[in-house]
């Protein structure tokens, strides 16, 4: 199927890109890797008059600034999957990135695209939510920061406004022994859309100590990636044990609102997300240096 007609431009600066988007009055689309936008244009679900490629605005995929990790919105899944800064504490972000698509897709698909597309099954969203990521957005009028936690509003719906570009994603490095994990359930090893997923992070007060902070986020069980706050609270202030993890996983699964679709039934998803949360917590705790 050929692509419908559109104008194309590739501005040199963020300011110029923002101006083009503002002048287009909502009839322009931002193009990063194109693995989502080009498919939607082929299917006719998005019909922009103008495609604004932001390729020339790309920065270094990941940098560290004052202890903060800053991920460029155009970092590809392949870049995140192999980046040395995502091998230790932040390994769950690389695990999410490597769970996306195929090698060909991961070489083009960007983390910014994965977030802005806002599918409930997006694989980088749960780990980034667990790390408390903030988004830096730019438009012709303003620059603003948003908590990723507030960003998702529904399938394909976010707080990004027409004319805004997601520039980068920021994460504070947690103090204390910390571990995270991302797991997803699929029917075969690759090129599969998530049936359910779970990400977890655990911050301890000292090695093998008390949980100071925990985050649990589940994918494909609600219209948006879903945080399990009651389950997080249940873990905090205590030493991690098999039974505390079992309890937290059960509480997390109880807030899931999955649907039946061709990838899995709602009941199956609710059962399996409990298993995935449990495994993600066990792995995150071990990576935080717990249970040794």
């Amino acid at each position: 199927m050929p692509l419908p007609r559109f104008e194309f431009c590739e501005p040199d600066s963020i300011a110029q890109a923002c101006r083009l988007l503002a002048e287009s009055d909502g009839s322009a689309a931002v193009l990063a890797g194109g693995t989502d936008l080009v498919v939607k244009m082929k299917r006719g679900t998005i019909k922009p008059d103008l495609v604004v490629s932001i390729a020339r605005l790309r920065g270094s995929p990941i940098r560290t600034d004052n202890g903060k990790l800053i991920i460029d919105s155009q970092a590809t899944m392949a870049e995140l999957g192999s980046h040395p800064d995502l091998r230790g504490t932040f390994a769950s972000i690389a695990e999410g990135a490597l769970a996306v698509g195929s090698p060909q897709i991961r070489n083009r698909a960007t983390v910014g695209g994965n977030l802005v597309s806002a599918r409930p099954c997006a694989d980088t969203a749960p780990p980034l939510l667990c790390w408390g990521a903030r988004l830096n957005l730019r438009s012709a009028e303003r620059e603003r920061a948003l908590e990723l936690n507030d960003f998702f509003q529904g399938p394909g719906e976010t707080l990004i406004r027409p004319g805004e570009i997601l520039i980068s994603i920021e994460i504070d490095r947690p103090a204390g022994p910390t571990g995270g994990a991302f797991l997803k359930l699929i029917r075969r090893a690759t090129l599969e859309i998530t049936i359910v997923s779970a990400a977890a992070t655990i911050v301890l007060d000292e090695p093998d100590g008390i949980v100071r902070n925990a985050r649990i986020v589940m994918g494909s069980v609600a219209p948006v990636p879903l945080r399990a706050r009651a389950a997080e609270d249940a873990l905090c202030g205590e030493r991690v044990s098999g039974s505390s993890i079992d309890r937290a996983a059960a509480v997390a699964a109880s807030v899931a609102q999955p649907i039946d679709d061709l990838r899995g039934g709602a009941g199956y998803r609710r059962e399996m997300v409990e298993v995935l949360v449990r495994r993600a917590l066990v792995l995150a705790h071990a990576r935080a240096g717990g249970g040794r």
Partner: protein
Amino acid sequence: VKELIRLRVNGADVEVAVRPNATLLETLRDDLGLTGAKKGCGEGDCGACTVLLDGLPVSSCLVLAMQAHGHDILTVEGLAENGQLHPIQQAFVEAGGVQCGFCTPGMLMSAKSLLDSNPAPDDMQIREAIAGNLCRCTGYQKIVEAIRSAAETLRRHRRPA
């Protein structure tokens, strides 16, 4: 209105006028006559259109030609040298890794990118490298064997005499 883009294709600098909505795959096949890369699903699921962009495999059906401006493209036509099949191509022939042939150009490009970065992959790494290339004929086993055998040949060639 067509716009002029410059790119390097199989080692040669090329200038070509493209429509803004042309994909890289359409430009390679229709404007440059390089029909090795195939159009399968058109949505990035099948891998038949795989080419290397700056050395990395991409689905050329999802890349706009305009996005390839200034970049280096390698297609299956760029593998053979002086009429001699590339060792990866030769290995596919010898191992029986080609049946209907529709997936073959994409498979070869994924294999090329793998062996450029990892001269001694294990079978799992080979399978991961071709995870985005569907083959409905071979059952993949002969393709994995071909890539393993090509890796050995290439390592032998690289060894200093």
